[in-house]
């Protein structure tokens, strides 16, 4: 399987001719035309499958990073006095690496639980932005589905699914769960491997694996930059995040960068050649309508 990243808007997509959609998305021509009988248009099915394969390929990189740091987390949790059930419970229930690492350190230092819980909330506050950005794509799914999807919404699953949805022009639950599973399963497995055998595994830092997370997220960010405003949002978000992080903390910097960056991008004058970026995702192409949901 080739390791192709999500296409930029001008890149041809397998599965048929491409039409530009509002917001810079691309999709096969028949996307919005679900057939009267509800049969998925063949070209759309092909495009969805091709995009899912791309999600699987991209997820391989994120899975490597999740596994590497899951091992380190498991090892650190044991060092901090966690039992294996406690270490795994945190991975399953919280499922947020940065806050789990922080919690291990806080527990080891004897920080009171209320402080740990408050810091967890601050570290994970960026998920609000991920959920808000995905909400317009997922609003037609059943509430229970969205509630389940929320639990596995991480940095990686957000980046994978947003790129996937933009490629195909609508939401796709299978693609979402594929990306989420590529993080969830390695993280849980690696937690236990690290707990019971982490000392035998070389340091991720020595293998350069500590840069895999950042490199993966950067590459996935490239996939969702489909126009001038997205580019400005990314650059502004990064610059603001670093400036604020240096003055406060990394978690606060990420949240402020994610909030203010888009505002800066909206100041960019809209050119006639730019795609209208306010349009919602294609309503006719929802995965339930075209029959590709699990």
């Amino acid at each position, binding site marked *: 399987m080739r*390791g*192709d990243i999500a296409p930029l808007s001008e890149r041809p997509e397998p599965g048929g001719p491409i039409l530009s959609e509002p*917001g810079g998305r691309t999709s096969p021509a028949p996307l919005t035309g679900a057939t009267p009988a509800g049969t998925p248009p063949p070209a759309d099915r092909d495009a969805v499958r091709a995009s899912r394969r791309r999600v699987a390929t991209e997820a*391989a*990189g994120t899975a490597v990073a999740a596994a590497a740091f899951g091992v380190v987390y498991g090892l650190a949790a044991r060092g901090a006095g*966690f*039992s294996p059930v*406690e270490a795994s*419970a*945190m991975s399953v*229930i*919280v499922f947020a690496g940065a*806050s789990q690492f922080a919690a291990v350190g806080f*527990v080891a230092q004897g920080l009171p639980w209320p402080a740990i*819980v408050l810091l*967890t909330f601050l570290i*994970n*506050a*960026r998920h*609000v*932005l991920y959920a808000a*950005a995905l*909400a317009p794509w997922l*609003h*037609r799914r059943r509430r229970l589905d*969205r509630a389940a999807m929320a639990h596995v919404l991480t940095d990686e699953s*957000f980046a994978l699914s947003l790129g996937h949805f933009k490629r195909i022009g609508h939401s796709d639950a299978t693609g979402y769960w594929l990306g989420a599973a590529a993080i969830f399963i390695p993280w849980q497995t690696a937690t236990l491997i690290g707990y019971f055998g982490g000392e035998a595994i070389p340091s991720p830092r020595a*293998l*350069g694996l*500590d*840069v*895999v997370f*950042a*490199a993966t997220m*950067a*590459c996935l*960010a*490239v996939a969702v*930059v489909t126009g001038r*405003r*997205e*580019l400005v*949002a*990314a650059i502004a*978000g*990064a610059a603001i*995040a*670093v400036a604020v*992080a*240096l*003055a406060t*903390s990394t978690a606060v910097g990420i949240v402020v*960068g*994610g909030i203010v*960056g*888009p*505002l800066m991008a909206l100041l960019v004058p809209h050119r006639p050649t730019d795609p209208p*970026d*306010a349009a*919602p995702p294609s309503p006719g192409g929802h995965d339930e309508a075209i029959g590709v949901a699990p």
Partner: protein
Amino acid sequence: MSLDLVVLAILMGAVTYPSRAIPLLVPGIDRLPGPILAYLRLVGPAVLAALVAANVLVVTKPGGGPGLHVGIESVGVLVAIGIVVWRRNLLLGIAAAAFIVAVTRAVGLA
């Protein structure tokens, strides 16, 4: 076997889940005004870039506070981005980033 910290995990989950779920579950997200939808569309690139930049460029100094760090990790990420833009190949980009960082550290340059 101790299970005390399972309670802590539940409390941590209780403050994490709402941040993930509330925007997805709140009704009427499809009826938001156009400017807000335009804003939400730009959140993805901004927050992902913010995450990467803060992850690579901000470190915790020995004293405990945040500090600016421009090191081989930044080079690795830029190389990965360049490869993805040039070759559209994510895995190649990630592998190159890890290789550059690992080799540079192994020879003592970082």
